[in-house]
């Protein structure tokens, strides 16, 4: 199982090399991995449908009880099948769609990484590993949306999607941590038993809100829906995979997965159903007013996600069953339609339906697939979409809250969905032929397999009684059982047994849809004034928030990071003195100061201290930089001598070498500075004196208090005892550095390396600048003997 989840990452690393060998056929070759995974997961259907869910646990960070544990029940299996199944078709399709793109190898890397992350999300049993995979899908989706990275709108859309879903993901993590603390476990399957405890806990509401924030942002629920249409800047295979079949369903999955833990409460019912209902209607309403094929599909996807949320919020048996059927229906028709939209765009150079018509002659295969998929989307009889829609109406009619209102909104939503279905299938492929920018011709086979397979599956499952029955019993039933946490038997029938209310609703829906499709041009003009509302819509909120954050970041950076070293020092010292000093005073530590007895000082120690003090006075009073450097050197060596006297030879050695090097570096720098001019005012010098005295006083007090405290450290004897036995070294200091606390050292040398690269970059930038704009006073640093008048302080940031 671990291999199944991680294999996508492994193959992603190898994909660029495979591309060098496979070239145009790479998509077909790489598709064997998702296909293999699909077959692997098919093997789970039998046991999962008949028996217990399968779990796998691999230790990851056992000390924090974070494990890579996987849980295969009906719900996660259904998602895994969709991910790997659609993934197979998408990899093939992507190979064809991007065949002439020079970065196609990169596409394969990202899409395989995404697939693996997505599998991780739906199979994880551990909250923390679920979160990690969840964020990985956000990251890979960022890379995929920004695939055409030279276009500014792609970059904008990628960042928007990343910030919205990433922000929600962080909220979700907070919710997970609270959930794990309240429920006493990180394992989802264990938490199933704690549902009642958690729902009665005082922190239930915050947990629910935080987790739902994650789910709603990911699944593009209102008011976070705007990132999804923006994400259409991605190549078509990405939209077909991430933005219809898989990633946007992660939020739906999360809500479904946590239903037994957080669900079936009033709060849950109102929030999840409420947001779902609002989303499904608003998005369907926006969808039919679009002309861009992909944007129509994007908004209708948001609408479908709203329907799924609404159903999961209701949480009744039939609603959950409807959700699972509709989930599959939607993945099939939407994935198919997105791929066709990509093919149309690819082969005609036109994506706006106003410029498309009569394509069925030149693109017969795509046209057939489009009609089949659109029929399923419209919920016509003998298509799987019909079963889905019947179940949706059944659930809204049985709802505990506002059954009539919900049903009404659902009917309206479906009417508009049918309109949208017509717009993406009938309009481009039938009617009068319209000349397109490129000469229209059928897409290559790699781009036909996907849409045809998905679209015909919708017919097979919707028209063959045996197939529908098996689909219900083996996939939908176990999946619904996973959400309800109790066994549920599902029987799907391709046609209703009697003419009842639900059938009537279906008839009304289809007639309404055809009607709206026919008059959509006129209707569009009527509702156009209403659209002014979007000027203050959620996308604007996002933009305002982002702009506000940028402005405040700029403002506080301007204040705190002026670019002058002296102000950095002042801020650092004052903050330390302020915080530590106030704590000392508040804790009353200063009263005991007089009680501290000073240890006797030896004459040679006093001599060193006097020497240091003299050197400091010299540094402050001199008007020669060289003297100042030498003076600082004396201070440093003096401190090193103190280290020697107090038994810290390692520190002393380091101090000696550092001092030597600092003097060397300072001398190097000195050569390019003009002569010494004292340009600080008397007031500034007085201020600096006060600040430095405060800093010194704080450290003195701290050291005095520290020495007065009884030494009660377990570390010192531990290191002394174990240095040789465990780490085979007599020098405790070095053993601590390279062994006991080696990770600290690792971090430090990494930081050192980065700092050096920073210095290198800054100096190189200055050099490059000088080459372009020669400034006589800076570009040729004068030797120290030849004074220049001006002295410009060198800002730290450049």
């Amino acid at each position, binding site marked *: 199982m671990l291999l199944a989840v991680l294999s996508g990452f492994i193959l992603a690393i190898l994909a660029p090399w495979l591309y060098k060998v496979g070239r145009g056929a790479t998509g077909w070759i790489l598709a064997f991995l998702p296909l293999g995974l699909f077959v692997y997961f098919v093997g789970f259907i039998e046991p999962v449908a008949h028996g217990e869910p399968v779990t796998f646990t691999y230790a990851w960070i056992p000390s924090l009880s974070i494990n890579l544990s996987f849980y295969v029940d009906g719900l996660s299996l259904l998602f895994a099948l969709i991910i790997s199944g659609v993934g197979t078709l998408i990899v093939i399709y992507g190979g064809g769609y991007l065949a002439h793109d020079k970065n196609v190898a990169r596409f394969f890397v990202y899409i395989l990484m995404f697939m693996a992350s997505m599998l991780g999300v739906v199979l994880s049993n551990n909250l923390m590993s679920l979160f990690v995979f969840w964020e990985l899908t956000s990251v890979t989706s960022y890379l995929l949306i920004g695939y055409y990275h030279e276009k500014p709108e792609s970059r904008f859309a990628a960042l928007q999607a990343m910030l919205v879903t990433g922000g929600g993901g962080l909220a979700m993590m907070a919710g997970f941590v609270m959930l794990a603390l309240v429920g006493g476990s990180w394992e989802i399957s264990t938490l199933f038993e704690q549902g009642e405890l958690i729902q009665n806990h005082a922190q239930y509401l915050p947990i629910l809100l935080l987790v739902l924030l994650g789910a709603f942002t990911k699944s593009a629920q209102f008011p976070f829906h705007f990132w999804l249409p923006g994400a259409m800047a991605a190549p078509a295979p990405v939209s077909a995979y991430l933005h219809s079949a898989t990633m946007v369903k992660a939020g739906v999955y999360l809500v479904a997965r946590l239903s037994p833990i957080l669900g079936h409460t009033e709060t849950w019912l109102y929030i999840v159903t409420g947001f779902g209902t609002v989303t499904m209607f608003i998005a369907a309403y926006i969808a039919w007013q679009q002309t861009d094929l992909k944007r129509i599909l994007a908004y209708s996807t948001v609408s479908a996600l709203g329907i799924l949320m609404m159903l999961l919020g209701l949480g009744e048996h039939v609603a959950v069953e409807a959700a699972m059927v509709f989930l599959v229906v939607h993945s099939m028709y939407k994935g198919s339609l997105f791929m066709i939209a990509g093919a149309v765009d690819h082969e005609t150079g036109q994506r706006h339906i106003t410029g498309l018509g009569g394509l069925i002659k030149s693109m017969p295969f795509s046209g057939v697939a489009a009609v089949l998929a659109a029929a399923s989307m419209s919920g016509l009889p003998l298509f799987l979409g019909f079963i889905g829609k019947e179940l949706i109406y059944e659930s809204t009619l049985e709802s505990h809250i506002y059954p009539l209102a919900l049903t009404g909104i659902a009917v309206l939503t479906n009417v508009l969905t049918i309109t949208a279905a017509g717009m993406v299938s009938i309009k481009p492929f039938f009617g009068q032929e319209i000349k397109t920018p490129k000469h229209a011709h059928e897409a290559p086979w790699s781009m036909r397999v996907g849409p045809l397979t998905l679209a015909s599956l919708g017919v097979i499952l919707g028209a063959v009684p045996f197939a529908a029955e098996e689909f219900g019993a083996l996939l939908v039933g176990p999946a619904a059982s996973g959400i309800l946490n109790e066994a549920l038997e599902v029987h799907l029938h391709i046609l209703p047994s009697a003419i009842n209310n639900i059938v009537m609703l279906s008839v009304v829906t289809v007639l309404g849809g055809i009607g709206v499709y026919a008059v959509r041009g006129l209707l569009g003009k009527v509702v156009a004034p209403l659209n002014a509302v979007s000027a203050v819509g959620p996308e604007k909120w996002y933009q305002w928030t982002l702009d506000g954050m940028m402005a405040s970041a700029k403002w506080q950076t301007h204040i705190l990071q002026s670019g002058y070293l002296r102000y950095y020092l002042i801020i650092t010292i004052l903050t330390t003195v302020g915080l530590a000093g106030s704590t000392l005073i508040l804790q009353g530590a200063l009263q005991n100061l007089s009680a501290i007895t000073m240890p006797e000082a030896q004459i040679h120690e006093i001599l060193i201290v006097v020497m240091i003090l003299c050197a400091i006075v010299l540094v402050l009073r001199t008007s020669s930089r060289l003297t100042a450097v030498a003076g600082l050197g004396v201070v440093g060596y003096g401190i090193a001598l103190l280290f020697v006297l107090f038994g810290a030879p390692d520190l002393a050695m380091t101090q000696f070498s*550092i001092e030597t*090097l600092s003097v060397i570096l300072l001398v190097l720098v000195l050569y*390019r500075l003009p002569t010494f001019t004292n340009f600080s005012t008397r007031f500034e010098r007085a201020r600096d004196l006060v600040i430095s005295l405060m800093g010194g006083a704080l450290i003195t007090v701290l050291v005095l208090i520290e020495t007065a405290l009884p030494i009660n450290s377990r570390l010192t004897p531990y290191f002394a005892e174990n240095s040789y036995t465990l780490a*085979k070294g007599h*020098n405790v200091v070095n053993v601590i550095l390279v062994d006991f606390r080696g990770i600290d050292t690792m971090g430090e040398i990494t930081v*050192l390396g980065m700092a*050096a690269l920073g210095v290198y970059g800054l100096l190189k930038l200055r*050099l490059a600048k000088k080459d372009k704009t020669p400034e006589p006073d800076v570009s040729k640093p004068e030797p120290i003997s030849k004074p220049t008048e001006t002295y410009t302080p060198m800002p730290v940031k450049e």
Partner: protein
Amino acid sequence: MQFSVILSTAIRYMLPLMLIFSVFILLRGHNEPGGGFIGGLVAAAAFALYSFTSNLDEVRRALRVEPRTLIGSGLLVAVSSASLSLFFGLPFMTGLWYDEPLPVIGKVGTPFIFDVGVYLVVIGVTLLIVFSLTEEE
């Protein structure tokens, strides 16, 4: 830049001595005062002094590798030595030791190799800064 003849003559003899000394400090680090950090500083100081008296190309030739490469390879050595234990199913950075002490070097183990990484990084960092500053002349 003109430096005194004394320094430029002395550094010719001091450079190899200081480098040997830096390796000595690195090696003794595990049992006596010393170690990769101090050793690296000493070696870097030697090259820094050398760069005062000769032109930079000559110093670069003497160093043979770019300081940036030193930083990178030092980090690589440190990380690899720390990761070695993973292959034996032990936690990251568990010290592994070769039981027999080698002549001159003494006992060899991953912490020692880690220290070599530190040594390389410190030389690289210092010299990258020194060279960049000198180049700006």
